[in-house]
C-alpha cells in the first residue's frame, strides 16, 4: 500500500515546488498509461485482489486506489473535473446515475462476451452504456448464532419471519438513503408486494428494529459484535464475516433481491487505455472467477463462471428462487427513488423510538388477546395495526411525476409546487401522532383484555 521512499518523495516534491520546473510526464502513445486511478467504496480485500492481479498482468501500469465512501467518492469526482480520476467502482447504481446525470461519466462499450442483459429482471449493464455491472449480490438475513442461542430465538428464514414479535429489538438494517443497495432491497419489496402492502410489511418489520444504521457495513458489524442478533444485509457481508470466523450465518429468503456492483469510466479520464483494460479485466472470465474467493464472496455476472463455483454458492442464472420472483422495473424505481428514501427516513429512521414502542404495545395486546379474547380490544388492536402500517403517500402519488419531483434536486426552470421541507414536516408530525395514537389504542386494548 505504501512505499518506503514515499516520504522522501514528498520532501523532494516540496523542494521541486520551490524551484519552478517544467516537469511534464511523457506518456507513451502505443501502450497502456503508467497508471490508472480508481475511486472505490469496496473493501480492501476486493480492490486489493484486483489491483494485484491487474498489475501482474500489466506490470508497467500502476493501480492507484482511492478508497472512499460512495458519497465522498461522488463529491470527489464532482469537484475534480479538471484532472479527474479514471474509474468509479462502487455497488450502488444510483451513485452512477447521479454521475451520469451530471455528465461525469463517459460511455464505454465492453468487448467482453457472454454476459446476458438482465438478471432477475434487473439489467446488468446500464442500458445507456455508461456503467457496467461486474458482479451481483443477493440480499438476505444474517444472524449471530451465539446471540440467537443465548436469547433462545428461532432462526429466521423469510422476510415475514422478521415481523414476529419474538424478534422485537433484535433486527437491524441500514437506511436506504445511506445505502444504495439497501434502497434496492426496499424497492424490490415494494415492487414485489405492491406499494401499500410493501410499506405495511416494511413498517411491521421496522417494529422489530433495534437500530437503523447510517453505514451499510454498520449492520454486519453489529451482528458480528452481537449488539443485535439479526441484520438485513447483502450476502458478501455475511459470507466474508463467516469466513473471518465470526459466529454468524447468512440465509437467502425465498424472495430475495439481486443488486449489482458496477464500474464505470469517468468523463475525460486521464488514462483511458489503462482504464479500459481494467474494466475488461473485471468482466473477463479470469476476473469473474476471482469473485468466488472467500473474502470477496460475490456472484459473477458471467454465467459460464459458475462452472467453477465453490460449493454452496447459489447460481442466480439457474436457481429461479433467487432474484427471479420480482420483475424489477427500473423506471418505477428511478421515478420514486428520492421519495422512498425520504419516506423511510421520516417514517422509520427518525421516528424509530415512537414506531417501535407502538409496535411493542401492539405485540403485548395481541399476546394478551390470545389468552383472553375481547372483541372491542381486537378492534382497537386492528386499528392500531392499521395506523402503524399505513403510509401518508398513496401509490397514485408515488407514481405522479410532479409529486416525486419535489424530492429530486430542484430544477431551475420548473418551480416545484410544494417544497420538500413542508411535506416532510407534515409526515413527521403525522407519524408522531399516529404512532402515539396506535400505542394508546393498543394499551387500552391490553386493559380491556385483562
Amino acid at each position, binding site marked *: 500500500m*505504501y512505499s518506503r521512499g514515499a516520504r522522501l518523495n514528498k520532501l523532494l516534491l516540496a523542494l521541486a515546488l520551490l524551484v519552478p520546473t517544467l516537469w511534464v510526464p511523457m506518456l507513451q502513445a502505443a501502450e497502456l498509461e503508467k497508471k490508472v486511478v480508481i475511486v472505490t467504496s469496496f*473493501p480492501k480485500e476486493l480492490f486489493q485482489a484486483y489491483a494485484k492481479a491487474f498489475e501482474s498482468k500489466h506490470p508497467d501500469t500502476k493501480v492507484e486506489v482511492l478508497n472512499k465512501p460512495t458519497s465522498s467518492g461522488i463529491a470527489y469526482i464532482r469537484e475534480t473535473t479538471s484532472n479527474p480520476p479514471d474509474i468509479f467502482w462502487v455497488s450502488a447504481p444510483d451513485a452512477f446515475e447521479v454521475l451520469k446525470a451530471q455528465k461525469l461519466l463517459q460511455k464505454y462499450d465492453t468487448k467482453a462476451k457472454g454476459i446476458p442483459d438482465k438478471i432477475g429482471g434487473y439489467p446488468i449493464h446500464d442500458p445507456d452504456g455508461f456503467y457496467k455491472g461486474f458482479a451481483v449480490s443477493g440480499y438476505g438475513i444474517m444472524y449471530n448464532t451465539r446471540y440467537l442461542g443465548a436469547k433462545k430465538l428461532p432462526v429466521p428464514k423469510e422476510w415475514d419471519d422478521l415481523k414476529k414479535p419474538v424478534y422485537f429489538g433484535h433486527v437491524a438494517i441500514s437506511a436506504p438513503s445511506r445505502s444504495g443497495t439497501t434502497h434496492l432491497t426496499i424497492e424490490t419489496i415494494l415492487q414485489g408486494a405492491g406499494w401499500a402492502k410493501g410499506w405495511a410489511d416494511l413498517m411491521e418489520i421496522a417494529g422489530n428494529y433495534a437500530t437503523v444504521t447510517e453505514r451499510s457495513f*454498520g449492520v454486519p458489524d453489529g451482528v458480528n459484535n452481537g449488539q443485535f442478533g439479526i441484520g438485513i444485509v447483502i450476502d458478501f457481508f455475511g459470507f466474508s464475516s463467516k469466513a473471518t470466523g465470526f459466529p454468524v450465518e447468512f440465509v437467502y429468503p425465498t424472495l430475495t433481491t439481486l443488486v449489482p456492483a458496477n464500474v464505470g469510466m469517468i468523463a475525460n479520464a486521464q488514462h483511458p487505455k489503462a482504464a479500459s483494460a481494467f474494466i475488461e479485466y473485471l468482466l473477463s472470465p479470469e476476473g469473474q472467477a476471482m469473485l468466488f474467493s472467500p473474502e470477496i464472496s460475490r456472484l459473477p455476472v458471467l454465467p459460464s463462471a459458475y462452472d467453477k463455483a465453490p460449493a454452496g454458492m447459489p447460481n442466480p442464472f439457474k436457481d429461479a428462487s433467487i432474484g427471479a420472483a420480482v420483475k424489477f422495473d427500473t423506471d418505477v424505481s428511478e421515478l420514486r427513488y428520492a421519495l422512498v428514501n425520504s419516506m423511510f427516513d421520516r417514517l422509520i429512521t427518525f421516528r424509530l423510538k415512537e414506531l417501535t414502542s407502538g409496535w411493542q404495545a401492539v405485540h403485548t395486546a395481541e399476546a394478551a388477546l390470545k389468552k383472553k379474547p375481547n372483541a372491542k380490544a381486537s378492534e382497537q388492536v386492528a386499528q392500531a395495526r392499521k395506523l402503524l402500517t399505513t403510509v401518508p403517500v398513496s401509490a397514485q402519488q408515488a407514481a405522479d411525476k410532479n409529486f416525486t419531483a419535489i424530492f429530486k434536486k430542484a430544477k*431551475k426552470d420548473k418551480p416545484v409546487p410544494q417544497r420538500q421541507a413542508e411535506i416532510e414536516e407534515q409526515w*413527521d408530525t403525522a407519524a408522531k401522532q399516529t404512532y402515539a395514537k396506535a400505542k394508546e389504542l393498543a394499551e387500552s386494548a391490553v386493559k380491556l383484555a385483562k
Partner: protein
Amino acid sequence: MRWTTGQIAVAALLAAFLLLFLVVPVGQVILVAFSDGAGGVTLVHFQDFFRTSLFRESFYNSFYVAGMSVLFASALALPLAYFTVRFHFRGAILIQTLGVIPLIMPPFVGAVAMQLLFGRNGSLNLLLDQYFGFTIPIMQGLNGVIFVETIHYFPFILLNLSAALANIDRAMEEAAQNMGASGWQLFRRIVFPLALPGYVAGAALVFIKVFDDLGTPLVLNVTNMLAPQAYLRITSIGLTDPIGYVISVIMVAFSLAALWASALALKGKEYATVQRGGGGLAKRRLKPWEQAAAMALIILILIVVLSPHIGVFLLSIGTIWSFSVLPDAYTLKHYIAVFEESTGFIGNTLLYAGLAAAIDVVIGTAIAYLILRTRLVGRQTLDYVATAALAIPGVVLGIGYLRTFYGVELPNGQPLATFWVILVIAYAIRRLPYALRSCVAALHQVHIAMEEAAENLGAGKATTVRRIVVPLMAGGMLAGFVTSFVTAAVELSATLLLVAKNADAPIAYGIYVYMQTAAGRGPGAALGVIAVVLVGAGTYLSHRLIERERYQSSLEANR
C-alpha cells in the same frame, strides 16, 4: 496603544490565511443555504428549518447533549486537574498524559470497542445480565451520546484547567488558607474562580465540540441531532438539499453564540494572576492512606475514560470477539498484518498532525495577542472566524477545498487540492479553535506589566513576545498544541474527501479502509492502538519537557 506596522501585517496575514482556507472554501459550499435555486438569495430554507419539528427536536437534543456532556466532563476533569497540580504524588504526570489519550479516539474502532464493552450486549451488560439479571442501556440514544462524548472530550477541560491552575499566584491561595479556608471551601471560593478562564475555555470547547460532533451520534445511530441531520442531508447521494447547509450555518452561528456567552461570563473581571516566582499552587505531599485513596479514585476514573482504548487494545489482540465478555483467543497477527502493509500511514500521521498543530499554535498565539493586547479594528472578527471552523463539518470543508483548490495547479501540474499539504491545512483549520482557546486563556493570565517591563528595558514588540510572552504562555500553548495534534491525528471526515493518493494517507484513512470489512477489524484496531501509542508518547514527551522546566524554575522560586 497605537497600531504598529508589525501588528497590522500580522493581522493581514492571519486574515488572508483564514479567508483563503476557511471563508472562501466554506462560503462556496454553504451559499446553497441562501440560494433559491434560480441564482437569487432567499431565507426560505431557514424558515423551513424552524418550522420543522424534527429539526427543532434535533436542536433541543443537541443542546441537551452538549450541556450534559459539559456537566459530566467537568465532574471527571476537576478532580484529575486538581490532584495533579495540588499534590506531589507519583503518577501525576501519568494522569496528565493518560488524561489526554481519550481525545485520541481512533475513528470506527473506538466506537466498535465501546459497543463491545458497554453496548446492549457488551461485556458489562453480559456480566450484569448473567449475575444480576438486568442490563443498563448505557449506549442507547442520547444517553449513549452523552456518555461517549463525555469520556472523549473531557480532556479539553482537564488540559485547560490544569494550565490555569498552575498559573495561579500562590499567595492568593495562601491568603485564603490564612483566612481559615481549606479543602472544598478553598477550592470553590478561591482556587476555582481564579482558574475560571481556563475552565470556561475548556468547557466552551467541550460544549461546542459536542454540539457539532457528528461521529459519535452517527456510530450510535442517533439521528435526531443537528450534526447528523446536516451530514445525512449533505452526503445523501444525488441530493443538493439546501437544508443540510442551513443546519451547518445554524450550527456555526450557535457555536459562535456559545463562545460569545463564555467571553461575556469572564468580562469585567481581572484574572491576570501570574506572578512567576510564586507561581502555581503549593504542592502538598499526601499521607500514605490519602495517596492510596486518591490513586483508587483516579484509577477508577482512568479505567472509565480509557475503556475505549482498553477495548481497542483487546480487539487488536483478539481473534474473534462476538457476544462475549472477552475475545475468544489472542493473537499478534493483526499487528504483523499492519506492519507488513501499512507503516506509511504512521509517518504521514505524525507529519501532518505535527505540522497542523504547529501552525495552530503559531496562529493561535498571534490571534490571542491581537485580541488581548491591541486595539486593532477587526481583531474580534479574526477570533470569531477562526473559531467558526469548529462548527464547520469536515465534509463541508473537504468539498470546499476540492471546489476551490482543485483548479489551482502546482508547478508540476498537480492540482493543489491533491497535494498532501492541503490535508495539513485542513487539519490546521479544523483544529485551530482548540489551540486558539488555550492560547487566549494562557495570555489572559499573563499580566501586561510583564510585557511592559520588557519593553521598558528596550525590547521591541517582537522581542517581547518571543522572550517574555511566549515563555509565560508555554503551558497553555502546549495544551493547545497537544489538543490540536491528537485530534488532528484521528480526523476522518475531511481526510476521506481529500486523500488523493494512498501513499499520502494518514492512519485515520487506513483504519477506515480496514474497518470496511469483517476481516479488517483486528488490523484496524491494531492501527488504532498504534495511533494512540504514538500520539500518547508524543504528548508525554512534551509534558516532560515542560514539567522539567517548571520544576527547575519552581526550585529557584522556593529559595
